[in-house]
């Protein structure tokens, strides 16, 4: 594999920072322009309604100012980004047909070993397109659909149109509008009534080109009484100029269904990661977001649960780790529209070396959502004097019978704890790593074992040499 000499050392410990030479079938010119949007739609051979949708989203994007709250986005120059890059090769079900460089890339990232091990299906996106998507036959037989979003639109046009952009409309925020205009790649998942997919589906996202953007769009529909778990992982090379990732994830959890969406975000430290993830949850359905934000330069991400019917439940477990030059502005949103809905937010952040992590969360309970309740717990761990953390809890309750609990703690890694572990033979780094692992344990234990191990490994890597 060729190692691009341009990779820089903004994060020496980042292990996925290599890149391939750029060889593409289509590379749209820089900037978010009408002709680029048309080009994308044409390249995908889309129906007219989708082109119209994209163009309308472009207008919305142009009419909205950049958000003034949250992380500092002044370094993000939207005119300097490539919005569409189609790799050579095409979306295939056969690993052998994936182009050599791309295949090597994913193999180096541990795919498709992971597939062989314990997954129901695997997808891989390289630049703007899915290059691989495969679902194991046993699940296909039960009617489970796991496709690239483009194939979803082609093969299930009605189901697609019924839900697409209903949960996150382009008007929602400026980045949802960008995504709606130039979306490309992502997954389309449908799990039929009562089908329980008991091992995870995973999609892997890789940005390779410099100054490029990735705008995947994922639509997941879990039908009544069904269950599934979807995992996404993301990496990119460490370039000196910034890349941009802005996904939109829409999820429908129907009555009595249960769904978990886990992210292990490990973008290189030059990526702006601005993602809108939202789930609509119906009667007695359960939605769980497990959100691990380790990489990126700036992340703004608040996985949301809209609890629409009686008994719906939403949970967000979020871990953020911010090192030098990173700002993780992460949190959650739980909105109660119906009675007896319940939510839980557990957020844990770790900041070190002038890194900054913020918890930003909204709990909203509308009038009439009788006996709705949500509990928020956010804990921040600071590893040194320079590190910074902030909490922005927004709580809006219109219903008298509702209850919202909120607890926040900030702690510093404690010298006595380090000394205690060191006195048992662990090195100072090992001791600090173990304390951090313990701190995130309540979340790590919710992940399948391999992912918990991976999460711990990534944190250990970030921790190297971090205590003096």
């Amino acid at each position, binding site marked *: 594999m060729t190692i691009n000499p341009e990779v820089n050392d903004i994060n020496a410990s980042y292990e996925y920072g290599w890149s391939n030479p750029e060889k593409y079938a289509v590379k749209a010119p820089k900037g978010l322009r009408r002709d680029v949007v048309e080009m994308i739609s044409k390249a995908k051979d889309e129906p007219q309604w989708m082109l119209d949708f994209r163009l309308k989203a472009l207008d919305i994007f142009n009419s909205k100012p950049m958000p003034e709250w949250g992380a500092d986005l002044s370094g993000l120059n939207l005119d300097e980004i490539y919005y569409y890059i189609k790799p050579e090769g095409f979306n295939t079900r056969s690993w052998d047909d994936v182009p050599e460089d791309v295949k090597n890339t994913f193999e180096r990232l541990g795919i498709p070993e992971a597939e062989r091990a314990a997954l129901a299906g695997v997808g891989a996106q390289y630049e703007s397109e899915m290059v691989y998507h495969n679902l194991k036959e046993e699940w296909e037989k039960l009617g489970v659909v796991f496709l690239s979003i483009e194939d979803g639109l082609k093969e299930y046009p009605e189901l697609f149109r019924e839900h697409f952009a209903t949960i996150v409309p382009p008007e929602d925020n400026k980045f949802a509008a960008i995504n709606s205009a130039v979306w490309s790649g992502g997954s389309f998942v449908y799990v039929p009534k009562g089908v329980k997919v008991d091992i995870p589906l995973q999609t892997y996202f890789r940005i390779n080109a410099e100054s490029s953007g990735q705008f995947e769009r994922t639509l997941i529909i879990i039908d009544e009484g069904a269950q599934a778990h979807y995992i996404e992982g993301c990496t990119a090379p460490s370039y000196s100029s910034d890349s941009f990732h802005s996904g939109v994830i829409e999820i429908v959890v129907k009555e009595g269904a249960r769904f978990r969406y886990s992210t292990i975000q490990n973008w290189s430290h030059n990526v702006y990661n601005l993602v809108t993830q939202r789930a609509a949850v119906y009667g007695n359905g359960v939605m769980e977001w497990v959100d691990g934000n380790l990489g990126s330069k700036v992340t703004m991400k608040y996985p949301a649960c809209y609890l629409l019917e009686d008994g719906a439940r939403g949970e967000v477990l979020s871990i953020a780790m911010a090192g030098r030059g990173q700002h993780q502005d992460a949190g959650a949103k739980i909105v109660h529209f119906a009675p007896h809905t319940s939510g839980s937010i557990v957020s844990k952040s770790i900041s070190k070396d002038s890194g900054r992590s913020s918890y930003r969360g909204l709990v909203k309970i509308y009038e009439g959502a009788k006996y709705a309740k949500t509990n928020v717990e956010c804990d921040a761990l600071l590893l040194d004097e320079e590190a910074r953390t902030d909490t922005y809890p927004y709580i809006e309750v219109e219903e008298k019978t509702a209850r919202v609990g909120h607890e926040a703690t900030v702690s510093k890694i404690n010298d006595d704890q380090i000394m205690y*572990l060191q*006195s*048992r033979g*662990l*090195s100072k780094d*090992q001791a600090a790593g*173990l*304390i951090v692992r313990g701190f995130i344990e309540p979340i790590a234990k919710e992940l399948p074992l391999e992912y918990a191990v991976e999460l711990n490994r990534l944190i250990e890597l970030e921790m190297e040499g971090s205590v003096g």
Partner: protein
Amino acid sequence: MTQTEQPHQIEIRNLHASVGDLPILKGVDLIIPRGELHAVMGPNGNGKSTLAKVMVGDPEYTVTDGDILVDGVSILEMEPDERARMGLFLAFQYPVEIPGVTIANFLRLAMQARKEEGEEVSFTEFYGKLQSALKTLDWDESIVERYLNAGFSGGEKKRNEILQMLMLEPTYIIMDETDSGLDVDALKVVANGVNSMRGENLGGLIITHYQRLLDYIVPDRVHIIVDGKVVQSGGPELAKKLDSQGYDWVKELATA
């Protein structure tokens, strides 16, 4: 001298240590041969815990003079983890809580830390030792799935220190008021744990206030520390004397 001729002992020579500008240890001299357990007694606030923490390398304390030799080698420049790997072990007076880290996981890492590069702690080794340690301490196996000291009672914390000691098999132990806060049954369990390790390959200090623990772990020598110095040493009878006569008379020794 060659390696094999080094004395098997801890030697503390004229040890002075401070916290910030405040001197706490003011010239401690002690020799503890491997194979012997010595009791360290003395009134509160006179430097017993400080001595223990300085021995294991707590960076909060600065050694301003003197030396500590373990088997003839000065350990003052060593990190706490190096000292631990040499075989030093402190059962803390106030063990800290590490939430989210199970005892099992922690014990395995600590055992692993003592291995040579490339050598793994095998499951059989780990589990075998664990079983026998739990049995000695009359403790249920489920304890090792709990988070390290998190929410433990005082007694459980102390017992957990002894569990670690049994698992890590140190050559030199320092027990800092392990008996305080224990009822008689727990005290017997702890003493039983220590006695099970006792022999020519174990040396160390037992810091305590009371004769109580020393009824079960009979010390080879007893030293009294007042105002950062050893003011008197003797046999086990010295501990009994303290028990019956109190500490007033020793305080006078320091000013004499």
